[in-house]
């Protein structure tokens, strides 16, 4: 017969070993689930879906997917014109298939049958040259065949030369992705929390995938989704006149654009001009083929934004800054291919406008790719 103390001791050991087995089984299952998720996500191509990139992990998840892509790789960076979601806001539910990157993808795939083509859209609403500078720093180590990005005079407004307005996304400034694809956040504060976040993003795919999935499902976070659902229900119950609201929104957008265009200059002390200079230097030093195109304004609205003579002078200055062009760089200035009907507002294009734009840019990108192959 056993002593009572021995029975208690052996029960304790049994409980601890049972707990250990449960914890170990949970960890093993989480690892298996993570491996499965990686395979399914990579195979589905879901990370190529355009989402509003508002968090570093979202950008990183898309970037790593792009890094692992085979074949021709083109990275399209830029502002809302590149992102293309203005089409959705104007009622185009199939907007994702009509953006510049999607149309370029189709164009290049047709030109290179049998070869995988990956055109990644890293467009983010409102990006400035200071944001692009960071984005190019992050994307450059992936070595795409061509980097495409847009510029607009609006970005050089003095509205964006004050502290707090210089960048639209401070997190882009803090995000660091090393050449081998290791993610880290470089911040003055929150060292331990940032380090932990970095480790989780690097090693736990489920955690890395989170921000992307939330952008895709909720167009933000679950909280913003609920808030916008409440607002939508509110306006539906009130029966508000949606069309009148849209028109008012367009007027406000135009007035804001006009105020920005009044304050444009390309002087060397403009921080946005300085950021552009640094972008051009970085691209030249890396010998990275880059196509820069001007985000052409609606010809009908342009006279309301600034006088033609000023526009021409600024364009000449912009072309001057971007030249002398090294062989790996192409600049496409304002295009005269659009009619006013190709625009949704003063600068955003509709699907036909994007088609015209991709027909202009596609052959140039293709030429850059073939030159690269020849070298």
């Amino acid at each position, binding site marked *: 017969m056993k002593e009572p103390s021995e029975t208690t001791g052996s029960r304790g050991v049994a409980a601890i070993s049972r707990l250990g087995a449960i914890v170990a089984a949970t960890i093993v*299952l989480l690892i298996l689930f993570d491996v499965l998720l990686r395979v399914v996500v990579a195979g589905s191509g879901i990370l190529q879906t355009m989402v509003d990139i508002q968090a570093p992990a979202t950008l990183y998840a898309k970037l790593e997917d792009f890094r692992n892509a085979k074949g021709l790789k083109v990275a399209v960076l830029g502002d809302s014109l590149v992102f293309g979601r203005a089409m959705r806001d104007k009622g185009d539910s199939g907007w994702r298939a009509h953006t510049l990157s999607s149309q370029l993808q189709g164009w290049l795939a047709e030109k290179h049958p049998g070869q995988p083509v990956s055109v990644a859209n890293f467009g983010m609403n409102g990006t400035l040259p200071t944001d692009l500078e960071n984005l190019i720093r992050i994307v450059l180590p992936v070595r795409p065949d061509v980097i495409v990005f847009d510029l607009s005079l609006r970005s050089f407004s003095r509205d964006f030369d004050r502290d707090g307005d210089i960048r639209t996304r401070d997190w882009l400034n803090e995000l660091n992705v090393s050449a081998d694809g290791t993610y880290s956040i470089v911040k003055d504060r929150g060292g331990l929390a940032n380090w932990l976040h970095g480790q989780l993003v690097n090693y736990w795919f489920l955690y890395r995938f989170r921000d992307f999935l939330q952008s895709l499902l909720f167009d933000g976070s679950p909280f913003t989704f609920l808030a916008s659902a409440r607002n939508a229900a509110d306006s539906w119950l009130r029966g508000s006149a949606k069309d009148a609201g849209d028109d008012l929104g367009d007027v406000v957008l135009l007035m804001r654009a006009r105020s920005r265009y009044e304050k444009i200059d390309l002087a060397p002390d403009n921080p946005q001009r300085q950021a552009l200079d640094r972008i051009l230097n970085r691209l030249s030093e890396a010998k990275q083929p880059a196509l820069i195109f001007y985000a052409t304004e609606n010809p009908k609205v342009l006279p309301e934004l600034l006088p033609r003579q000023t526009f021409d002078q600024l364009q000449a200055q912009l072309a001057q800054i971007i030249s002398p062009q090294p062989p790996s760089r192409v600049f496409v200035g304002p295009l005269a291919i659009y009619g006013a009907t190709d625009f949704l507002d003063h600068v955003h294009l509709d699907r036909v406008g994007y088609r015209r734009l991709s027909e202009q840019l596609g052959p140039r990108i293709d030429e850059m790719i073939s030159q690269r192959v020849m070298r």
Partner: protein
Amino acid sequence: MALSRKDIIQILWLVAKIAVIVLLSNTGHALFVYQNF
């Protein structure tokens, strides 16, 4: 120590809960979501 069938089902359910919490919550809200899941 061998786990029973019931244990394994409970572990699977726990892993599923962890996955949903990680995917749908923000870090600061994770505990709140867990408590109300």
